[in-house]
């Protein structure tokens, strides 16, 4: 009798397989301090021992914007739909940067952390989650930069910026970007533990992804089959909506945004399932 009572209060159970969609949120919650410390580490450690320090958060997008203005605006003379190029490019870059950096870091979770993962147990999902949060902070900083430049053009120039009510969708857009980068990143990192081929593809894919997203050009300048291809990219609707909300140009459609949302949910489910499967035994293959 006593035996049966005793045997029920195990705090740790280790079994070969986990449930398919086991997020184990309770455990993640228990490790929330670790998550915040990881965020802090990622955010603080990056710019230690640099002269400009946190200024790099601004320098990166500013340099990218200037480069785009020169190459795509100045040399290639691509349309910005009558918008000031700085605002036009920056409106695409800030969200895309969030997606691209978060995605590439999450994709590298297992390989980059194998030393720690090989020694201590903690819910592995904490690591990618912390990356998503720390890059969200970076996004926040860069978004402020966008706002400053945006407000300058809005208040001090005649630029035809038309902010509208869709700005209220901003939190949704951020969550979708986070979800897409997390979902896709989890799938890729699970695959890379066994097949390193994906690491080689990754940098290339992100670069390609940027051109397949309406960042340096407005979606309206693409027609026919190409447009279909561009809009099949779930980040396209997110960027277009962001731009539409602040600048008033481009195309907004609930359908396109809904499509991105569905893709995000599907990717998240697949990502979590594969991640859960892989985290249990990746030390044997990584």
């Amino acid at each position: 009798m006593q035996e049966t009572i005793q045997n029920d209060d195990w705090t740790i159970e280790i079994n070969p397989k986990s449930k398919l969609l086991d997020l184990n949120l309770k455990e993640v919650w228990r490790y929330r301090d670790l998550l915040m410390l990881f965020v802090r580490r990622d955010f603080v450690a990056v710019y230690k021992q640099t002269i400009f320090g946190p200024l790099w958060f601004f320098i990166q997008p500013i340099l990218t914007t200037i480069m785009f203005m020169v190459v795509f605006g100045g040399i290639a003379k691509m349309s910005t739909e009558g918008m000031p190029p700085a605002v036009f490019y920056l409106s695409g870059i800030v969200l895309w940067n969030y997606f691209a950096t978060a995605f590439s870091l999450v994709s590298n979770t297992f390989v980059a952390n194998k030393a720690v993962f090989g020694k201590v147990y903690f819910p592995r999902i904490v690591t990618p989650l912390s990356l998503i949060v720390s890059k969200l902070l970076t996004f926040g900083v860069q978004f402020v930069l966008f706002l400053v430049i945006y407000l300058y053009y809005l208040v001090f120039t005649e630029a035809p910026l038309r902010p509208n009510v869709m700005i209220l969708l901003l939190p949704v857009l951020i969550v979708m970007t986070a979800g897409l980068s997390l979902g896709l990143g989890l799938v890729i990192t699970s695959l890379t533990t066994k097949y390193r081929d994906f690491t080689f593809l990754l940098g290339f894919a992100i670069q390609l992804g940027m051109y397949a997203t309406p960042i340096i050009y407005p979606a309206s300048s693409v027609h026919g089959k190409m447009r279909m291809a561009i809009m099949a990219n779930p980040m396209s609707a997110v960027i277009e909506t962001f731009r539409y909300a602040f600048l008033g140009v481009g195309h907004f459609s609930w359908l396109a945004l809904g499509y991105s949302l569905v893709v995000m949910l599907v990717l998240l489910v697949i990502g979590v399932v594969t991640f859960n499967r892989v985290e249990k035994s990746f030390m044997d293959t990584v």
Partner: protein
Amino acid sequence: MKPAIKIKNLSKQYRLGTVGTGSFAHDMNRWWHTLRGKEDPYLKIGETNDRTSKGNSDYVWALRDINFEVHQGEVLGIIGKNGAGKSTLLKLLSRVTSPTTGSIKARGRIASLLEVGTGFHPELTGRENVFLNGAIMGMTKQEISSKFDEIVDFAGCERYIDTPVKRYSSGMYVRLAFAVAAHLEPEILIVDEVLAVGDAEFQKKAIGKMKEVSRGGERTVLFVSHNMASIQNLCSKVLVMQNGTFAYMGDTEDGVNFYLKQSREQISLKLNERMDRTNGKNLRFTDIKLLNFKGEVVEQAMSGMEVKFEISYSLKISLKNVAFRLVISNIDGQDLFLCNNAFSDKRIDINSEGKFVFRIPKFPLPEGEYFIQLSAYSDKGIEDDIESVLKLDVEKGDFFLTGNVPVKKDGIFVEHYFEH
């Protein structure tokens, strides 16, 4: 007493060789079997983890059907030869990887004392790293805060606590890392002496901490070691592992004897026929003889007399930079001294089978039973390695040539002079 850990039918299978295209094909096959509701085809095959013989399968069981319980407050020693599955067992317990079959149930937090400094970030300050490292090991921020002063005090680096740890001396780094681990206070503590890093002082500290923890009687400790003396000193129970299964579990005294006997049972076999060796493909020890100062084969050595070990080997290919190593250990498995031509002479190149001799002019061991381990290394790595090649009986002898022989039968004789 409640069981703190309960292990049931625990097995772990590894795939040998490289993970690559072959594994992709197997993955597909596996997937195809599961899709049709059939059993995984690769779980049926596989062999016990006997490294000494070459198997036919690509799959190997590092652990197979382990069942045991550890009660709360017990200090369980885990012993076994290299490759017996000790580390795999610990890996499963610390949840670094998961078992192929079976389950582990445990009460309370499991922590490994020697995984110190995990997740230390060089750019962060000592303070930041204490929090980060503590959190990785499962402490909450509040817990760490409440122990922070104690941790810094224990590490003795208060002055540097706001300096990035990359500026720390290696000793300071380890002390700080260890201080965090020592204040973790897990219910189940894992100490792997085999993997222990750090200097002797640090290892002593780790063992000291372990003693302190186990004395309370509430914490459970799993202790892996090759040192039979510390096993006997610390453990209340012993688990002997062999080829991925366990060979013995129970009383410490019996367990240690069982372990030592395990490899010594093989002594009666001829050296050439021994299977419990590492490698042995190119170079193979075939015979060992004990000679006295006249060059006659003898059964026993004597303290203070000249002793020669004549060892023969066979050779398949020429080897460069070969070092031969002969280690003498006592009955508890503790190494006493070694002969190695890499130190006493130089490494040699060999082209054919042959013999070599280690000559010890004044044999320094007091009377008793000793065991000899033989190994050979070339520039390609380990060539042959056999434990307990010979049981060596040493007779009482007059080492100091004074007619007085010490009564104590421990340690080593050292020639010395008394000046007054």
